């Protein structure tokens, strides 16, 4: 199945001995000139790239406190060295968080610190050579910006920030990454990552309406561009057709239907994902975010809700107000933006949803905390609600739920292996190897607790697992959407299932 060795799952998550250079050839395709130019970057590597890169670095050090403080503060204590799933899966020391940072730091020290200018060998500083640039390109694309390292560093040094800065510098000298940049281009041109134009979208949604009506006898609507709706739902475009994502979208629609609120999708903002985050570009992240503001204004909605997606929720929760706010034209009584799980949990607590948990009895669930949700957001009002809300919803709609090992969930969750702009076939080896810790924890509950399925609330996690689970001997359909579980257990008012339920009770 693969042209590389798939790691075997051991009893435990094992920290390997270092194996320098094993992954040094592994990098993604470089962006073509038109992918680059659409985003405002030079088409190909500029002639004076070294000078330009150092200048850009200087500029970013003045704009980002994170970068400046992180460059200066690392004591090389090694606390982070065994925390990255890519290091655990590959053993390449440049995949240790500090090893990755040092690729940046050695250039920083050389050009921006006295010690590095005068005693480069002593402090491990180096000129920005072509080999260093190659290392940058390959290893800064073996980081999913998952922030696990930042939890364990005594100074909270977040390698994701450094990866983003490095990618921004590389894009600005003409060496961007094809996957992310091409996708951002599609968002600008068509409105979503998949390049799904408005008619195709309308068609898909109509298909969903028919499907749900066939199943239940209830005409649940999946509206598009409906002016005056109360809620604008922004969801990752994978929800429109990929499995298991689409089952989640079906679930959102049913919940809105039962709650009796009016809602709509937008063809202009038909994408929650914001790959501007991945490439570390404030400007692109902002431009992508502004579409959502404009759609909300155009459609005259009162509330903004986001579908299941990890990094999109980080951008929405943490950055949207900064990038595209203030949202004073929306109803201030609700969180802006709100997560679909906050909405659904609210309805569950109100009792407006008729749930039959036994409809999910064919499954025993576990939950994969997505990195960006876990370590960069809340889903609710209290710190830690990002862990509790999804579990509360799952437990409200399923009888069988078990958590994975404590050090692999919640704030210590391991990335799926495909986040941060790595969800591309040209990085398959990194993706598969990076999934090892999660697969190890999953196997444990599958064998010892009878778990059959893993639920997630992130489009990237879902796509990554569908692809990677089979490499480790699981089935690709063992990954499910949380709203798919809600959808399974939700008995719509006036549906065939409701009458069956009434008959059974009578």
């Amino acid at each position, binding site marked *: 199945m693969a042209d590389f060795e798939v790691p075997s799952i051991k009893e435990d998550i094992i920290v390997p*001995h*270092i194996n320098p250079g094993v992954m040094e050839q592994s990098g993604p395709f470089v962006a073509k000139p038109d992918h680059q130019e659409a985003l405002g970057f030079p088409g190909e590597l500029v002639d004076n790239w070294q000078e330009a890169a150092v200048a850009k670095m200087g500029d970013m*050090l003045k*704009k*980002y*406190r*994170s970068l*400046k*403080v992180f460059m*200066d*503060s690392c*004591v*090389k*204590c*090694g*606390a982070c*060295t065994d*925390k990255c799933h890519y290091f655990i899966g590959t053993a390449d*020391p440049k995949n*240790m968080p*500090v*090893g990755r940072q*040092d690729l940046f730091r050695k250039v920083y020290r050389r050009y921006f610190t*006295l*010690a590095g200018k005068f005693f480069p060998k*002593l*402090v*491990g500083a180096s000129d920005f050579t072509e080999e260093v640039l190659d290392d940058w390109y390959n290893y800064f694309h073996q980081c999913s910006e998952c*922030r696990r390292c*930042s*939890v*364990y*560093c*005594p*100074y*909270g040094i*977040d390698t994701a*920030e450094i990866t983003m800065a490095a990618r921004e510098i590389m894009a600005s000298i003409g060496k961007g990454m094809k996957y992310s940049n091409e996708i951002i281009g599609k968002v600008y041109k068509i409105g979503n990552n998949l390049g799904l134009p408005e008619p195709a979208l309308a068609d898909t949604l109509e298909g969903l309406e028919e499907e749900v009506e066939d199943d239940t006898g209830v005409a649940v609507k999946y509206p598009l561009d409906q002016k005056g709706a109360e809620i604008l739902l922004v969801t990752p475009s994978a929800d429109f057709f990929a499995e298991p994502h689409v089952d989640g979208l079906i679930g959102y629609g049913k919940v809105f239907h039962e709650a009796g609120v009016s809602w709509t999708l937008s063809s202009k903002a038909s994408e929650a994902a914001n790959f501007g985050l991945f490439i570390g570009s*404030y400007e692109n992240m*902002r431009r992508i975010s*502004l579409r959502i*503001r404009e759609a909300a*204004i155009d459609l005259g909605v009162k509330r903004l809700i986001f579908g299941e997606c990890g990094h999109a929720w980080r951008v929405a*929760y943490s*950055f949207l*107000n*900064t990038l*595209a*706010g*203030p949202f004073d034209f929306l109803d201030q009584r609700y969180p*802006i*933006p709100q997560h679909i799980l906050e909405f659904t949990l609210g309805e569950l607590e109100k009792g407006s949803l008729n749930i039959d948990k036994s409809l999910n009895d064919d499954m025993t669930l576990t939950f994969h905390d997505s990195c960006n949700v*876990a*370590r*960069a*957001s*809340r889903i609710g009002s209290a*710190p830690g609600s*990002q862990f509790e809300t999804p579990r509360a919803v799952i437990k409200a709609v399923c009888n069988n739920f078990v958590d994975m090992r404590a050090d692999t969930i919640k*704030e210590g969750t391991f990335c799926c292996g495909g986040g941060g702009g790595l969800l591309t076939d040209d990085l398959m080896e990194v993706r598969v190897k990076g999934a090892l810790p999660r697969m190890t924890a999953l196997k444990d509950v599958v064998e010892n607790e009878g778990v059959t399925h893993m639920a997630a609330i992130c489009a990237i996690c879902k796509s990554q697992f569908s692809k990677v689970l089979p490499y480790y001997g699981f089935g690709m359909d063992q990954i499910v959407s949380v709203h798919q579980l809600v959808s399974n257990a939700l008995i719509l008012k006036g549906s065939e299932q409701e009458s069956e339920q009434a008959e059974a009770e009578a």
Partner: protein
Amino acid sequence: MSILTGFFAVLYSLAGIVLFGGLAYRTWVFFKTPAPLKIPTTPAPTTRSGVAFRLVREVTIFESLFKSNKWLWLFGWMFHFGLFLVLLRHLRYVTEPVWGWVVLIQPFGKYASILMVVGLVGLLARRFLVDRVKYISAPSDILMLLLLIGIGLSGMLMTFVSTPDIVQLKRFLLGVMFFSWEEFPASIILVVHMLLVAVLMLIFPFSKLLHSTGVFFSPTRNQVDNPREKRHIVGWALKLESGDKR
């Protein structure tokens, strides 16, 4: 006045200026560099006082390090706590009259040096024994630990074996601080100890020792988790907002 006195007086004047001036400048740069986005590592406090408490935990009990690695935490904490007590103990050389609480902690400060050196040796051992830590260690990382061990050992020699003329040392140090030089109480161990300390003071603001102030400016630790409730925007980001936003 001896040459040695002149040398140390000049050295310590310089080292004091470099240490305090340099540290103040580098910290000022941290302070004035904007943090354009909210990036606290969550779960994070939702109030300012919560953040203050988080930072206090980080600098007193090394909370994140504790989550990460118990050995490293143990050695690191031993070293820092030992260093902290030792520094407090040293206050008696530069204050007149000596504050009451400084007098009280003297006996603890004495044994803290042991804690400190044992911690440092543990940290140094890690740099050779753990392959991952060995890989990330530059020569400067090892030299720094050796320097601190040297300071600790020479200090312990004076505390436990051959005490120099402390009364005269204090006169000398106060003299450097207030620009009326006094004779330096020459002794080999004291010379070594004071030279090493001066080196530490001189390299402090140019080295990774900036983590001592950096930790307070780390956005993943010092930001309040309230992006939905309160709009966060910095100057350069605001400038992008000319005209293209409805």
